[in-house]
């Protein structure tokens, strides 16, 4: 029991530290990186649910991110809805596309599904590129309104234009996301997803309607990715077709693999590590005038696959996937 108490204490402490960071560190650049890391935490976690837990290899995940970003941005700019509602609309529209992409997954698996998902993302990227009247093409949508300020009393309201305040919005969004994913993964639904990943015909043979589960997990995963995209749109206030690119998906993939595929903590660790690492590498790139970032990503991916399949979190036995699962 005391072990349990310790865990709770650590958790409480961790949450306190996360909330205190912007109060102690006021460096805007650092907070900006924390926000970006946070957006990637949501994004990688949603990809991890789909690919790490359910085994559906999706190499078009950036499409959901982009759909969420464009949907919210366009609805707010053209229709005039509140950005807060836009966040959810981004999630819902993305979830709808998730459901659509789930349909081919009923019959396709492995590399075939992977190729289909790449095609899906590329089509959407080209649409965003070429539908100039709506998306302004490769210029991207700029001047996206920030999240509307919340008025607490006359003369006092919380604005969401600063990195610091946005950080708090994101922190809450991440807690809710991870809480949902934790409940999902540990429930019967989660065990069923894993059984499907391990052995699809096997899961069918004990009565799992895999079609339903695949569509469900695609929809849920896409919702959270779209929500992350919408958050990004109102934070960065600029969305370009690059958000839908294959490179973006590979960043998600590398983060998750490095952190630990199929674990809850993995995507969180991976997203934070790589966000800061890639910023560090930016300085190196400026020095050597060479795009070393992708080289290093690739290298990290190879090392992870060869020597630490379970990623960084796998190095700490407490979070391991294998052996004693504690279930």
């Amino acid at each position, binding site marked *: 029991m005391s072990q349990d108490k310790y865990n709770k204490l650590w958790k409480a402490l961790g949450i306190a530290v996360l909330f205190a960071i912007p109060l102690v560190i006021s460096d805007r650049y650092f907070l900006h990186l924390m926000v970006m890391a946070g957006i990637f935490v949501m994004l990688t976690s949603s990809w991890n649910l789909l690919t790490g837990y359910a085994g559906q290899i999706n190499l078009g995940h950036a499409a959901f991110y982009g759909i969420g970003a464009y949907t919210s941005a366009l609805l707010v700019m053209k229709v005039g809805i509140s950005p807060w509602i836009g966040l959810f609309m981004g999630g819902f529209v993305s979830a709808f596309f998730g459901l659509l992409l789930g349909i081919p997954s009923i019959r396709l698996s492995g590399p075939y599904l992977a190729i289909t998902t790449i095609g899906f993302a590329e089509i959407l990227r080209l649409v965003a590129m070429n539908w100039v009247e709506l998306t302004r093409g490769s210029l991207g949508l700029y001047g996206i309104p920030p999240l509307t300020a919340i008025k607490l009393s006359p003369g006092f309201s919380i604005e969401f234009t600063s990195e610091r305040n946005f950080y708090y919005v994101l922190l809450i969004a991440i807690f809710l996301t991870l809480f949902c994913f934790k409940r999902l993964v540990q429930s019967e639904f989660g065990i069923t997803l894993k059984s499907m990943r391990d052995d699809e015909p096997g899961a*069918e043979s004990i009565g799992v309607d*895999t079609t339903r589960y695949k569509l469900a997990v695609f929809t849920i995963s896409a919702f959270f990715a779209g929500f992350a995209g919408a958050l990004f749109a109102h934070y960065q206030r600029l969305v370009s077709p690059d958000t839908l690119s294959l490179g973006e998906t590979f960043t998600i993939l590398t983060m998750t693999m490095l952190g630990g595929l199929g674990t809850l903590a993995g995507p969180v660790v991976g997203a934070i590590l790589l966000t800061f690492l890639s910023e560090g590498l930016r300085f190196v790139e400026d020095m050597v005038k060479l795009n070393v970032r992708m080289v290093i990503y690739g290298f990290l991916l190879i090392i992870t696959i060869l020597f630490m399949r379970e990623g960084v979190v796998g190095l700490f036995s407490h979070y391991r996937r294998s052996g004693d699962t504690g279930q």
Partner: protein
Amino acid sequence: MLSIENIKVSYGKAMAIDGVSLKVEEGELVTLLGSNGAGKSTLLKTISGILKPHTGTIRFDDQDLHTMPPHQIVRLGIIQVPEGREVFPELSVLENLKMGAFTRKDSGVGKDLDFVFELFPRLKERRRQWAGTLSGGEAQMLAIARGILSAPKLFMLDEPSLGLAPVIRNDIFKVIRQIHQERGITILLVEQNAKLALGMSSRGYILENGKVGLEGKGADLINNEYVKKAYLGY
């Protein structure tokens, strides 16, 4: 209970089952014998709905199975333990067992869990371990235990003794007899080990090149000259 009428199944142009009729009555333990490629596993897969017959009918009680998708067939209580001890390697032993009870909504799951842990104490010891880390015999035990948790009405076992050490094989056969006698579960057993399997069966079928070569009571088949020569090795 289960009645198969003159079904034909083929993989592309290769005919695997060429007009088989077979019956399993409630409470029976029926063995399906046959050499490699005779169509035993194909027959089980067809009953489970993974393969579909070109012609013929499969009926279970009053339902047509040959037009039903696999997951619905499972819901009728037709549970197959596939060949080669297929367990979910990255789920724990306990999670595997829970997956066995996937289609159940009743409250008897906990009691059945106790029952299989009693049958296989090794699984209880290893319940938190990844199923992929089990030995061959343990994995087979888990596959059978998972099947029991599905509360089968018709329990189909595909070569449960395949590749197991003799001691463990005997244990497995003992358990199969136990669940048949104590729980009254109807069993359709596919085996290569003719003597052990026929010895405890009510009836048996011998498949040869996709057709039923012989059928009869278990005891009669053991004493049949042809069976002795071809399957018992004396």
